[in-house]
């Protein structure tokens, strides 16, 4: 056969290579940037997740959406104290708040920082309230050092110096231990100074002896603090007291090293799975299989970009959904290619077999994909965080696979078919000559 066959449009093949080269260049230049930008979930990065049930702190207080929103706002303010870059605080159900902190190094501190209500109160030894959080100046707490001992302390500012002066002038004249002023965190009805002060993990931060009248707005809280603890306490006081009581009902702490291992293994498995699929497609569908590999590579890239752009959090089930999505994309290719092979076997020319096969496979792929999206949407709507991540990934995968495996594959294969270079070469499509029925 001479190379200059009649009617071969080599221009279309040039277009094909230009498109493939453009995508290859695009993928090669920024795929690592996109891969690195994806925020990883708790199971991959390590971190900490707590589900709280919100209980009213005062009698008659009703837990409603507004109260939950206030709670989320104060929790977010507190997490800023910890310096977590991407906290995820969500309202769940009627009375739940889920806090997710990926990459937190000190989980114990985080847990304590979150669950304390931060209701500061000053009381006498008989537990009568002298001052409470409402007397504090907003944002007036700061970490400082005791001028006498250089120990880390917390300074809080109250709005009325006279009030504190009156309190201290009364206390200073009392006999010990009545002259002590207890600084409480999260005092609850029924707590008692004399019992609490003996406890190891006491709610009383400190109980200074009052020996003189202090007409000042600055109150010094000395405790057995490290600098960091003092900073956290100041931060919590500035963030404000929680409007509610938080009961921890579920917590999930993942050490990062466990997560990293799981991540590496899942990625390795993903590469093997995809390599197997690619090999099978080329062996079985020959030339069309190569088109499938190109579109599948573009598919994986687009899913990555879309996922990044959505700011979604990738979890282990999400990776599994991505690999499953590859399977769905392969299915769309297989359905089309089987149709084209069918048409070639009936004796149609390569070009008309391609056109008929593409057209007939479309409604099949459409119906199959829509039903799966339907199932994934239900998952997203009713699932919890991990299952939701999975569902998002699945929906993104299916939509992208429709774009690449249906339109992309058709465009690329169409360029070759319409160039007429594949005319009368059924073997390139995995069809043997003797399978073709005579017209």
């Amino acid at each position, binding site marked *: 056969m001479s190379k200059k066959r009649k009617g071969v449009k080599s221009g279309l093949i040039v277009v094909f290579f230009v498109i493939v080269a453009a995508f290859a260049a695009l993928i090669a230049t920024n795929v690592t940037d996109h891969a690195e930008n994806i925020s990883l979930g708790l*199971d991959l990065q390590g971190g900490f997740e707590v589900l709280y049930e919100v209980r009213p702190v005062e009698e008659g207080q009703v837990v409603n959406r507004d109260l939950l929103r206030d709670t989320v706002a104060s929790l977010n303010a507190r997490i800023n104290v910890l310096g977590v870059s991407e906290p995820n605080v969500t309202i769940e*159900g009627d009375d739940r708040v889920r806090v997710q902190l990926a990459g937190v190094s000190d*989980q*114990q501190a985080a847990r304590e920082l979150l669950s304390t209500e931060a209701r500061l109160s000053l009381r006498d030894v008989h537990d009568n309230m002298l001052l409470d959080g409402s007397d504090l100046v907003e944002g007036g707490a700061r970490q400082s050092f005791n001028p006498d001992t250089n120990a880390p302390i917390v300074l809080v500012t109250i709005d009325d110096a006279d009030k504190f002066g009156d309190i201290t002038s009364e206390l200073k004249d009392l006999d010990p231990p009545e002259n002590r002023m207890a600084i409480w965190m999260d005092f609850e009805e029924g707590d008692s100074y004399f019992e609490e002060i003996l406890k190891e993990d006491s709610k009383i931060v400190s109980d200074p002896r009052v020996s003189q009248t202090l007409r000042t707005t600055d109150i010094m809280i000395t405790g057995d603090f490290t600098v960091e603890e003092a900073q956290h306490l100041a931060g919590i006081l500035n963030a404000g007291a929680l409007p509610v009581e938080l009961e921890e*009902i*579920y*917590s*999930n*702490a993942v*050490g990062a*090293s*466990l997560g990293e*291992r*799981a991540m590496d*293994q*899942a990625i390795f*498995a*993903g590469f093997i*799975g*995809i390599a*197997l*699929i690619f090999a*099978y*497609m080329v062996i*079985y569908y020959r030339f069309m299989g190569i088109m499938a590999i190109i579109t599948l590579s573009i598919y994986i890239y687009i899913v990555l970009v879309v996922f990044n752009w959505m700011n979604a959090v990738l979890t*282990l*089930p999400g990776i*599994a*959904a991505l*690999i*499953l999505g590859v*399977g769905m994309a*392969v*299915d769309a290719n*297989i*359905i089309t290619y*089987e149709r084209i092979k*069918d048409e070639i*076997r009936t004796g149609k020319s390569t070009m008309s077999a391609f056109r008929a096969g593409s057209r*007939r496979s479309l*409604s*099949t792929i459409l*119906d*199959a994909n*829509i*039903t*799966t999206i*339907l*199932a994934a949407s*239900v*998952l997203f*709507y*009713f*699932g*919890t965080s*991990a*299952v939701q991540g*999975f569902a998002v990934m*699945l929906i993104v995968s299916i939509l992208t696979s429709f774009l690449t495996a249906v339109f992309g594959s058709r465009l690329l294969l169409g360029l070759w078919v319409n160039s007429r270079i594949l005319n009368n070469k059924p073997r390139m499509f995995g069809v043997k000559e003797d*399978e073709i029925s005579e017209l």
Partner: protein
Amino acid sequence: MNFDHETTKLDFIKHRKKFFIFSGVMVILSIVLLSTVGLNLGIDFKSGTTIDILTDAPPVSEAQIAAEFEEIGLVPDDITLAGDNNEIGRAVFIGVLNQSETLQVQSHFEEIYGNEPAVSNVTPMVGEELARNAIISVLIAAVGIIIYVTIRFEFTYGVSAIVALFHDALLILVVFSIFRFEVNIPFIAAVLTIIGYSINDTIVTFDRIRENIKLEKRVKDFNDVARVVNKSLVQTLARSINTVLTVVFAAGALFFFGGEALRSFSFALVVGLVAGTYSSLFLAAQLWLVLKSKQLEKQKKRPLQESEA
């Protein structure tokens, strides 16, 4: 692979009663198993605490982990080893550990192995909600699928597809019940994926049946429908096998290389994929054939009765 529907001797219809009996027996067996032995519910569905301890010197033994817990005065209800080299110890406590116990466990094992163990606490309320959500989701999805298929196809297709779907979901549950694999949140995601795959696979076959029915000049009785169904199944056979093979490649790679965390998930996927392919080849279309021929018989009788009256 090439399955020519005119020359092939493959007959998916003749043995349909055997397929029905096989599936029927499987379903009955499933219900018996699930109601007696039940599932090995993971901590996601049970009140309690699991602690995953990654050790720095594999392999560890159950006794070693138990001894470490004894030192801090705790007795786990179950200890299993995980990881390729048994470097992960998993302790399960029925009943939730309180905050100070948890902190104690974390600091104790961090001191010994240099890794903070992963602690999961679950109250039954959370687990029950998860399970209920999953079941409700499946039911809603089933209704949605029936509605969609009824609009695009016909009601009989929808019913057959949903029967096949529940058949597949039940089969995964049974396999998990027999092998005592842990049922956790990713498992639920796997079951729901299989439901999606099962419906996807069934729709592709039904789509071909719908197309072939339109091409037929005469579809009047059981034999006509049976011929079309068999022809459609043979025509889509290569696609059914290729697709399930490629997805099994992906799920199988996850199972063998994806690590401990994804093992039960990927196992559920592989089992579900095989079940999904079986049900679309041997169950869904045959069921539709029975429903459709009943419908045709009714239509035949109705004008007859009217003319008699």
